[in-house]
């Protein structure tokens, strides 16, 4: 199937300008998603025009403020409130700011760096001798097989 998808990493300060440009080109805002990395947050702004899928990506630290894009896309307020409530990031100048009442979860900011336990990437086996690298691969390769 493989739908072509573009992910463009940009700086935080370029965000509003680039989003405004996409708006002028007739794109629609599909979603804003956030990913918790070990020490930073990765924000994906997804856009679509005639089924062409495009993403802008910014990376911010927990104490950084994220600019709001609600002045361009009014429906972004919901995603930005979500990011504030679940990840604890501050989004500046949201058009409709619920101040943390959109998600009334039992734990405050459940997706923040303090709460999320990121999985360890597998250890590199490049330096090990060739014969030995194959055997552990087969073991870790098929979790389904192990279950069955």
């Amino acid at each position, binding site marked *: *199937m*493989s*739908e072509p*998808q573009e*992910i463009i990493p940009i700086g935080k300060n370029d965000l509003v300008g680039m989003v405004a440009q996409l708006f002028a080109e007739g794109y*629609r*805002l*599909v*979603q804003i*998603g956030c*990913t*918790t*990395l070990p020490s930073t947050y990765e924000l*994906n702004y*997804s856009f679509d025009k005639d*089924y062409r*899928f495009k*993403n802008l990506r910014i990376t911010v630290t927990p104490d950084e403020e994220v600019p709001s894009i609600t002045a361009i*896309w*009014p*429906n972004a*307020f*919901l995603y930005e409130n979500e990011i504030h409530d679940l990840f604890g990031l501050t989004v500046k100048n949201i058009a409709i700011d*619920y101040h943390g*009442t*959109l*998600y*009334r*979860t039992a734990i405050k900011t*459940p*997706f923040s760096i303090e709460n*999320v*336990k*990121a*999985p*360890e*990437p*597998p250890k590199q086996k490049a330096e090990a001798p060739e014969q030995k690298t194959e055997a552990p691969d087969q073991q*870790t*390769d*098929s*979790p*389904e*097989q192990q*279950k069955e």
Partner: protein
Amino acid sequence: MAHKNIIPFGPQHPVLPEPIHFELVTEDEKIIDAIPSISYVHRGLERLVEKRDFIDYVHIADRICGLCSFMHCLGYCQAVEEIMAIQVPERALYLRTIWAELSRIHSHIFWLGVAADAFGFESLFMQSLRLRESVLDIFEETTGARVILGVCKVGGVRRDMDAETLEGIVNRLTTMKGDLEELSTVFINDYSIKHRLAGVGFISKEDAYALGCVGPMARASGLALDMRTIGYAAYKYLDVEPMVESAGDCYARCLVRIRENFHSIDLIRQAVSKIPEGPVDVKVKGTPNGEYFSRIEQPRGEVIHYVKGNGSKFLQRFRVRVPTFSNIPAMIKVLKGSDVADVPNIILTLDPCISCTER
């Protein structure tokens, strides 16, 4: 000058099958603002990726929602398969399409029933659910389950259908089509239904686009937006046509869903006539290392499953952007300026799926 009142709507309300809360700011009978609050039943399923490996997680994706259970599973599997470059056998793609379309039919008929119940047409509600039952029977016979199907897995599907069963499904749906036509006539022509829905909750094409409407909500306003046209699963081999209406009101949203039912029956017929022989799954080796946004069309619209893995057995991030979430800004816009008595109908024609939203 009337003063402002705040009416709490939900989380428990007679017309709401699921809990969502709105604070409706009113002046006399007019609504001037609506403030949503979700998370009444937030389950934190996205963070369960920390505890379940990517193969196990399929079962959780299956349980995000009852009505779109299969679609969530399909979207998740598709994203993982794309990252791991797994070539899913053609037959599995066709089977996925058939189950996905059956899910769409059962969800739409269920919606028609619930909508009928909301505007006080009890017998129509009963008739709709009776029809839906035959789709659930097909699910039970082909997958062993009625609601949470659990047939989709990374690399294919768990069960195959023989030619006889496939023929049987088409025959049953042909019979159902007659009943559905009869049911649709009531929805389309009945005076009181028209009176209740026509002209209510209008949203223009421009607003629908700017506010990020998806699914029947967007299509009822004249936007031909249907993710099936990008050709995931076996849709690339079928004639998919987005069902578009232009009126943009509650009645148009109802019509879109009725027409989609018939289109889905046609898609299943096409899929059954083209389904190739062959295996239904492939062995999965390795772990996902990469990211992908899988986009599919649920009964309620475009859903996005974002999967990010770093080569470990456990995913780094799984996010679902559900259609209901995307439709909430438009819902708030429509609610502003409408009458308090129309609120249940407006919220229902959007077909909010809170279970999806509260993932």
